[in-house]
């Protein structure tokens, strides 16, 4: 039984997410089961609000998103954090383990349960329990998608096709999802298992569990050949499961997921490589990519990011555990190796030494993390950068509450890495803006953060991002590589795909959600989607 609760101030935290945007809403529900989700959707399907328009329904998980996808645009908030059960486990024909979960399961908890062999299994059938016994007896398994924010929930991660540092080797969330159950706007359900149904060209036929047949015309655009979380995933003859992953809560509500687990690498080493100049770091990245077969992450921290860490280490005891940074170090590339044994890792380390020597680095200006303590230190180093920037912005907001952090999430093809970094540097300098950049350089995907000092800086930063969206699109890149588009980046999506393709996306949405209720304001503006059943 689930209640649709009228809005009171006790729910105000559900108006916000990690993007620090705030919305509004009239009611909220906390479904625990797929049945609860269907009940709520049946009661809201086609319902109108006081303004006579269909009631928007915004689906939330842990609200850790950075694009405001979970920030409500009025109407109803469906928070799925209490739908957090582990439902079963099986092995497929390749021997992989697949764990079936509800969308509210939190990533950090999933990791902990896998590592400690404590997956809650009450009520599981005999086949699942047998598979669980096998799982615990065999090599340790993990779920490879690793967004920085581990309090993210699995449903939200699927909704924005989340990535993380290890996406360099493992890709984004999409290929690690074997099946989905999706509740549609009318409360009907679509069950999708990867590899069972495919589109014919750009036409897709879906059968619902309620016995309906839905014919869908897919948008006609070609997606960029880069890391990409911008708009709907569409391709000729595609698997429909891929359409719903990364759809930002606009096509349906994910009520169940089956996740493909992978064996934990036997040897996992992290290496921080420090450079004097950004140019050397880029040269190193380009050289490492083809040479290092076992790299699973290539991350970057620019000079401003390192300076922020130096200051934090001096000023705050909370950051005193950060290792000391030599003043000569101007930027850093973090390489993570996932190897079968130590001999393999040592061979890669020797390759890194040679590449460093050829690219202006030094084998001495490195940190190699091989123990739990050292790897934790490296993790702290990586996560301390965004945390410190958030603290800096919060400090500045005390004097000017209108400003907030402006973080880019764009990616480009491999051969445009130097071009895009040059673009960032030249335009930031021309605008006189303070910034810090870090992120997934292996995927040519940097989070360039403008650090506004006042409202004028904030406005200039927003203008700059719009020009970057155009330039990155021209380079064959994506305006959102991992955060999703949500509400904050829909203008960029329009730049990337153009008005005609945005209308195609809206038309696709209307075929599944005729009243345009789900995830209203995500991907495109409300009026783009209006049509009615």
């Amino acid at each position, binding site marked *: 039984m689930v209640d649709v609760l009228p809005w009171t101030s006790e729910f105000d935290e559900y108006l916000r997410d990690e993007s620090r945007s705030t919305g509004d809403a009239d009611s909220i529900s906390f479904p625990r089961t797929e049945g609860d989700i269907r009940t709520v959707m049946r009661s809201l399907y086609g319902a109108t609000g006081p303004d006579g328009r269909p009631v928007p329904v915004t689906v939330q998980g842990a609200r850790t998103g950075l694009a405001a996808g979970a920030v409500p645009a009025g109407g109803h908030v469906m928070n799925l954090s209490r739908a957090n059960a582990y439902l079963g486990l099986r092995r497929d024909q390749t021997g992989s383990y697949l764990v079936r979960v509800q969308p509210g399961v939190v990533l950090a908890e999933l990791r902990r349960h896998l590592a400690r062999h404590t997956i809650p299994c009450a009520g599981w059938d005999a086949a699942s329990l047998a598979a669980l016994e096998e799982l615990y007896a065999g090599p340790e398994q993990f779920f490879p998608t690793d967004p920085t924010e581990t309090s993210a929930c699995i449903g939200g991660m699927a909704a924005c096709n989340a990535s993380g540092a290890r996406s360099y080797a493992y890709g984004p969330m999409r290929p690690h999802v074997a099946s989905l159950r999706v509740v549609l706007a009318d409360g009907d359900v679509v069950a999708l298992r990867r590899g069972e149904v495919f589109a014919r060209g750009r036409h897709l036929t879906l059968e619902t569990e309620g016995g309906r047949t839905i014919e869908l015309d897919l948008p006609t655009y070609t997606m960029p050949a880069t890391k990409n979380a911008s708009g709907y995933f569409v391709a000729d003859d595609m698997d429909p499961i891929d359409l719903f992953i990364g759809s930002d809560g606009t096509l349906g509500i994910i009520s169940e997921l089956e996740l493909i687990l992978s064996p934990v690498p036997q040897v996992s080493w992290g290496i921080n490589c420090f450079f004097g100049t950004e140019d050397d770091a880029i040269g190193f990245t380009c050289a490492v990519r083809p040479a290092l077969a076992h790299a699973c992450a290539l991350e970057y921290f620019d000079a401003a990011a390192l300076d922020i860490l130096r200051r934090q280490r001096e000023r705050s005891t909370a950051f005193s555990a950060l290792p000391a940074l030599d003043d000569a170090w101007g930027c850093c590339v973090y390489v993570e190796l996932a190897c079968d044994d130590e001999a393999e890792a040592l061979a890669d*380390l020797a390759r890194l030494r040679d590449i460093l020597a050829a690219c202006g680095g030094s084998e001495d200006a490195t940190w190699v993390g091989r123990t739990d*303590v050292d790897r934790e230190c490296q993790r702290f180093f990586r996560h301390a950068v965004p945390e410190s920037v958030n603290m800096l912005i919060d400090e500045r907001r005390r004097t000017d509450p209108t400003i907030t952090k402006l973080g880019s999430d764009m990616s480009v093809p491999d051969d445009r890495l130097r071009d895009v970094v040059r673009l960032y540097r030249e335009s930031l300098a021309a605008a006189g803006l303070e910034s810090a950049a870090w992120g997934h350089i292996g995927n040519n995907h940097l989070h360039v953060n403008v650090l506004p000092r006042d409202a004028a800086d904030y406005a200039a930063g927003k203008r700059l991002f719009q020009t970057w969206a155009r330039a990155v699109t021209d380079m064959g890149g994506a305006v959102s590589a991992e955060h999703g588009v949500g509400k904050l980046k829909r203008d960029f999506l329009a730049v990337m795909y153009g008005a005609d393709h945005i209308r195609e996306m809206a038309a696709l949405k209307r075929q599944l959600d005729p009243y345009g209720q789900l995830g209203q304001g995500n991907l495109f503006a409300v009026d783009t989607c209006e049509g009615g059943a």
Partner: protein
Amino acid sequence: MHIVVCVKAVPSTTEVKMDPKTNTIVRDGRQAVVNPFDATGLEIALHIKDECAAAGDPCRVTVLSMGIPDTERLLRDCIARGADDGLLLSDRAFAGADTLATTYALSRGIACMDEPADLVVCGKMAVDGDTAQIGPELAGALDVPCVVDVQRLHGIVGSTLALERATDAGRELVEVDLPAVITVAKDAAQLRMPSIAGVLAAEGVPIAVKTAADVDADPARTGLSGSPTQVVRSFVPERASEAVCVTGDAAEQAAALVELIEEACR
């Protein structure tokens, strides 16, 4: 200067697993790490080595451990971080040693080194045993002075070490003539990470592994037979908590609280 750093392999502090039947720590090589207090000791030693290098003085850091053969992996990691060489005392004869027998074995290892130790650095204690006895006992065995719970190294002049140590009353500044033994607090320093150069170079450094016979250890003073400590039982303490609700006005609650505290202190 020759500095010997004693290191112990302990279970990883983040994931200690207990055997539910025997209530003992499950020890397997994969989870072993250098005792965090000893890691700090290594950093103190490496810092002295850096200072000596800057002054043009020679300094050698040797890491010493008693343990299973896999402990060699941890000693090699210490070398990757800047130690020069390692000695592992590994022999079934050392098994079951208490702190006295361990100290004896370590003192034999130091005595058999090719260069006398000017300074022996130990962690204040080990995270799995918590005895804090090895450093002082080792000083006794070597017949040198001992400074325990060192918080900070102020400097070294000639053969005198200036240190700051914690006491019950606060901090104490101490000067000690070498040779000496010091034990260090965990927060006294943060162990540096190894570099690629360090890791690759350490792979080629031979680590001496010696038996009890190799270091002329008296069998009656090693391992179980050299250990007067008798472990009667080890167990995981049960966690118990009890809530008492205090009611009434502020004065009544305060009085009830005082009574509860007095009762607990009886």
